[in-house]
């Protein structure tokens, strides 16, 4: 088991190198140079050239790529943001907690409600309850986050005046954005849960459990759901991982200074170190979360555990 974890963590290195290589390459293709970006339109060309030279921008692509990697590995230096001239890492550390809080809360909400409703729909297949849940799931899935967010602001902030519409200064401020993200995620969670549960409750071992005299709730949640967990864990994991990159739309609508809006504004202003670091950060977190998902598999399913141990 430990061997497996170490192997997976070592595998992270080539993955991250690949990510850096590709993003670095794409950023390289975009026009513009950092000297001009930092000094502004009105600066003299000589100053711009000098700065470009100092930043190493005039060196060939591969040299810059290796220098970038070298700085990260030897000095843990991710560079200074072109826009603010401050270390990018500091920026990310300021922005990330907002994103993390929103991600945890909305994943939690959408999982709890999505799974419960999905299970209910599956157990009551072809009844009115099932149809209403399925329709609800469909509505949730097709509503884009910016639209849901806007409607929520209209209702809860403007009409009723219960909750603030923008900012992230108190817990109250998080309610609407979290709901917005959760509703969108919940739709697909419900649909996925319903379909995996429909298959699980038809299995023989579910009948065995009933024949043992187990009450329905235990049959459904203890036996069937436990077997349906694998696809659900994958889905929750990648949903959570995806949210590490920030929820750009919700952050924009509700004006929350999270990673999502930071990455978008960095791309717009060609702030290469910021974009690179954000991407790297996101890729690392996503891979680690997926590693956790794979480890959870082993925890849930002894057959997979056996595979890990033997590999």
């Amino acid at each position, binding site marked *: 088991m430990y061997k497996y974890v170490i192997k997976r963590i070592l595998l992270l290195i080539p993955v991250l190198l690949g990510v850096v290589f590709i993003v670095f390459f794409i950023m390289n293709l975009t026009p513009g140079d950092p000297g001009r970006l930092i000094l502004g339109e009105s600066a003299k060309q000589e100053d711009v050239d000098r700065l470009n030279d100092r930043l190493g921008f005039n060196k060939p692509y591969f040299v810059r790529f290796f220098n970038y990697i070298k700085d990260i590995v030897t000095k843990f230096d991710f560079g200074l943001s072109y826009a603010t001239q401050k270390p990018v890492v500091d920026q990310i550390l300021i922005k990330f907690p907002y994103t993390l809080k929103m991600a945890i809360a909305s994943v939690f909400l959408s999982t709890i409600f999505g799974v419960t409703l999905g299970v209910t729909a599956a157990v009551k297949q072809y009844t009115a309850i099932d149809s209403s849940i399925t329709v609800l799931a469909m509505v949730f899935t097709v509503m884009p986050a910016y639209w849901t967010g806007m409607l929520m602001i209209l209702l809860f902030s403007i009409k009723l005046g219960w909750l603030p519409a923008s900012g992230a200064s108190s817990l109250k401020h998080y309610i609407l954005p979290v709901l917005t993200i959760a509703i969108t995620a919940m739709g697909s969670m419900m649909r996925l849960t319903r379909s995996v549960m429909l298959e699980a409750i038809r299995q023989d*071992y579910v009948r065995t*459990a009933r*024949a*043992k*005299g*187990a009450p329905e709730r235990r049959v459904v949640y203890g*036996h069937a759901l*436990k077997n349906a967990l694998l696809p659900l864990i994958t889905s929750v994991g990648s949903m959570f991982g995806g949210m590490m990159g920030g929820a750009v739309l919700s952050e924009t609508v509700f004006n929350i200074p999270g990673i999502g809006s930071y990455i978008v504004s960095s791309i717009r202003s060609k702030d290469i170190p910021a974009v690179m670091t954000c991407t790297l950060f996101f890729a690392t977190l996503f891979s680690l979360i997926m590693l956790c998902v794979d480890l959870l598999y082993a925890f*849930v399913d*002894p057959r997979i555990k056996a595979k890990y141990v033997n590999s």
Partner: protein
Amino acid sequence: MSEKLLEVKNLEVIYKTDLETVRAVNNISFSLEKSQTLGLVGETGAGKTTTALALLRLLPDRTARVLQGEIVFNGKNIMELEEKEMRDIRGEKISMIFQDPMTALNPVMTVGAQIAEALELHNDANRGKEAVEKRVNEVLEMVGIPAMRKNDSPHQFSGGMKQRVVIAMALACEPELLIADEPTTALDVTIQAQVLAMMNELRDRLQTAMIMITHDLGIIAETCDNVAIMYAGEIIEYGTAEDIFEGEQHHPYTVGLFGSIPNLEVEARRLSPIDGLMPDPTNLPEGCKFSPRCPHCTDKCRREQPAYYETGTHRILCHLYSKEESL
């Protein structure tokens, strides 16, 4: 005669969907005494499993309907019990061994936990955790599996071992009635013999009544006191094992069944099956359900549903014998 444990009267079960109605079990009656074994024999689709599931009230509730019938277990009609009372019967008083041990166990739970679950659900004696574990060890040893393997998962067991676990689970609460639904069909022949011998031994030791569902007449001959032969949802012949295996009069279907068993002593180039196929249960023939395949079929058979012809313990659902009587 000892007292009746189970009595099924005029049970009729259909599966109804929007498209069609499958008449799975048609008006069957049988009874079972304490610590006796009844064999239910028949082809695939004869209604054997449906009958078994009806006894536990585990029929799929969306499609299956019990049109009529009484199932009296220990003097109580279980068709009228509350769901909660029924749960107390399942697993404790009546338990079931399913056909396919490969899929009957929950793959994500250890076998020990699955056996313990049955014990905890019916914990009338208020066993503590340790007592439950002790009992789990006991039943595992009873079916010939070392107790230390209780923390293993089903995928670590072979098919025959899994079926032993299923049997251990079914017997954990010492039920009064054990329903074995083709317990050996999914196993290979050598393991079949082992498992059967073990089941017989345990049944005798624990004095459990048993309903043995199978299509293998050899198994019936080895294990059963009474035999019911099912065809198209009806019991077409019912009697003691002696009536069925040694009696002189038989339903033509039974004759066909015995005739289709290959004989080692007679040299035959081909097997002799019963001609034709089991009738479509969504569209059963009028009159006797076996008439389209019956070598003795008459006009009367095609028109009229036969009544039972009874001699002592032996019952045959056929016009052949009642006709003789009236002649």
